[in-house]
């Protein structure tokens, strides 16, 4: 787990910016939230599209 997080933040580590384990985990949660945002807005856009084409 830590290895993966270190890999992900390799660039930051090389720049000597501190990266904590929590930060890495937070990034993971954030990715899921972003994916859900896409589903929400994509779904709403699709509903609008469906209504428009059926009018």
């Amino acid at each position, binding site marked *: 787990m830590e290895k993966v997080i270190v890999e992900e933040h390799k660039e930051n580590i090389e720049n000597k910016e501190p990266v904590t384990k929590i930060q890495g985990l937070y990034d993971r*949660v954030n990715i899921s*939230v972003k994916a*859900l945002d896409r589903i*929400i807005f994509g*779904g709403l856009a699709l*509903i609008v599209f469906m*209504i428009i084409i*059926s*009018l």
Partner: protein
Amino acid sequence: MVFKNLKFRINEFKEMDSKDRNRLIKETLINNSLLIFMLIAIIYIQIQRPQFLSRESIINIVSLSASAMPLALGVAGAIILTGTDLSAGRIVGLTACISASLLQAVDYSNKMFPDLPAIPIIVVFLLVIALGALIGFVNGFCVSKFSLHPFIVTLATQLMVYGVILMYLMNGDNNGQSISGLSSGFTELIKGSLFRIGGTPVPNYVLMAIVLTAVMWVVWNKTSFGKNMFAVGSNPEAANVSGVNVALTITLVFTLAGALYAFSGFIEAARIGSNSANTGLNYELDAIAACVIGGVSFVGGIGKIRGVVLGVVLLKLIFVGLNFLSVSVNMIYIIKGLIILVACAIDMRKYLVRK
């Protein structure tokens, strides 16, 4: 109390720095995106079809919502326990068919049971409520005692209840036909009206749904059973350690849900007037969608009565509105599915952000 809370929130918002403020606005907009979308859709439909929000149309929407309300309140309890109930629609169908068959007019020529004398309405009502509660009890017992997933248990019950409906409709002289010719006393009790709004009659079942919603609010918020339900939904282990009888709570929630479906079935029998094996088909999907839109979380332990009411009314508003726009029925199924998907994504998003 509400204003005090609002004032506190406004002050809290004012004290935030611009970054936090922007984030809060963004989160609020995304969390309520479906509601905002629905409100915009309603405004658009009203502009396109001014008769959409006429008095008659609003009473029609309220009536449709009222008939779906007991079902949604029952399903909401199951969802709060991190479960679901797929048997809801079929229980509505079975109880509607039984109510209709026992309350046919005595002089109706195609009676299902020709020799059956007139039965008091209250007896039939108590009978179907007991039957619904019994099916709900079986669901709850299997979920709590055998630790089976509610999805599978209620799927099995759904199929079994459907089989029972088909067999029941073959009884007497009916031979599988729809049951109609209901007694005037029964239809008058449900569809008659005690008062009118601007000359438009408001059916009695709207009043029944309002009373039932008030009773359910008390059960959810003011009784130890309601508090136990939320505790079990949030964390069953913690609830168990705190002395809550988890198995009994789960069983009671499903039993109560079964009784509520039966109440819906009793109303539907008179409202539809002609009951067949298809009565109640897919009702549970609308109820689940209404609950999720109203903020009842699949994560468990979260949900409010006002959310369920809002979800039911908004969903009916949208579907009646789409009918006003002459959107095809096939397309409405797709839109319904998308609404459920978006509502679930919003629910999950709220959970992740809170975590």
